[in-house]
């Protein structure tokens, strides 16, 4: 059965697009049919991170408006047969995105994919609420930093109020993905620790992605980090997060962390 995931954060620049690409590729590497959908109309970037920027012909708004069929707009990844991209429009007005139109596209995607990963724009405006509206679960991307945590708290409030699931009185499944985490700085007391962020936001932890050069390297090349270097620390962390998203029990670790701290985290129940 298809599952729709929104990757959201409120604050910009925390790693929504990077995480969408990395999680999408990790799920596709499991052999599950996955599509990553860019909702950032006007400021699309998922195509660039995926390395498909020169292959975009039609986009989400073309499909919503009926100018193109869904199959015409979908771009199949050249490295992974199971991975697809539905790009956002670069030039058109974001008002062209309607709730009904988006619902139709999502319903159509549900017919042919196992995973539909929606990359939300930053902010709490219409684009962000449309991206989360039809989701079955949310991945809240947060940096261990005050403004990011505050904005994530707002987004969690919106997920519990403005989504279809919330309106139907159902519980929205939410997962915290802590990105750009630096264990050494946290240990020194210069960065919020995993437990601090978890205690403040009180949603289950999906994964901890370490701050790493490998992430920038991958986006420079136009490849999800999980494809570009499957063995690097952020890739391993994203792969574990994808497994937890799929319902597997995977012990939580911070790659590159000191052993004592790992033991402390070991056995923490994942999302």
């Amino acid at each position: 059965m298809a599952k729709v995931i929104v990757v959201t954060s409120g604050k910009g620049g925390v790693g929504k697009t990077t995480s969408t690409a990395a999680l999408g590729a990790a799920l596709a590497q499991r052999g599950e049919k996955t599509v990553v959908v860019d909702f950032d109309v006007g400021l699309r970037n998922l195509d660039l991170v995926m390395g498909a920027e020169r292959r975009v012909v039609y986009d989400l708004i073309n499909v919503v408006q009926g100018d193109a069929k869904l199959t015409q707009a979908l771009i199949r990844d050249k490295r992974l047969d199971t991975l697809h991209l539905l790009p956002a429009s670069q030039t058109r007005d974001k008002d062209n995105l309607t709730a009904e139109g988006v619902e139709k596209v999502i319903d159509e995607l549900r017919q042919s994919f196992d995973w539909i990963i929606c990359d939300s724009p930053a902010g709490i405006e219409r684009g962000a609420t449309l991206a989360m509206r039809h989701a079955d679960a949310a991945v809240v991307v947060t940096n261990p930093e005050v403004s990011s945590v505050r904005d994530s708290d707002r987004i969690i409030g919106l997920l519990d109020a403005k989504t279809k699931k919330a309106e139907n009185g159902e519980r929205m499944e939410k997962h915290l993905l802590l990105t750009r985490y630096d264990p050494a700085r946290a240990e020194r007391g210069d960065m919020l620790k995993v437990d601090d962020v978890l205690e403040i936001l009180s949603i289950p932890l999906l994964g901890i992605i370490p701050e790493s050069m490998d992430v920038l390297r991958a986006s420079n090349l136009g490849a999800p980090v999980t494809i570009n270097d499957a063995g690097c620390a952020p890739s391993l962390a994203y792969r574990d997060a994808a497994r937890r998203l799929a319902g597997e029990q995977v012990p939580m670790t911070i790659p590159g962390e000191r052993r004592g701290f790992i033991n402390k985290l070991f056995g923490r129940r994942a999302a």
Partner: protein
Amino acid sequence: MSLFSFLNRRNTAPMARERLQVLLAHERAQVGHADLVGLLREEILAVIARHVQLDEDKVTVSTQRGENVSTLEVDIEIPATASVRAA
């Protein structure tokens, strides 16, 4: 003072954590507060209006959040000429 600032510089994360906890407790209460009052006002009005004719502008609903007790205040002005319907 120099000792204090030295400690402060070494450990900024606890400050971040504390500031966030205070700020978010406040912000969550505010958001909840606004929604709750609007909802209560609407529903209380609907119930009263079933029995008494009233002027919507003459109804005020407010809540006050105290440390131990929160209060809900409903103030409804019923005009002397209002016809009271039997329940």
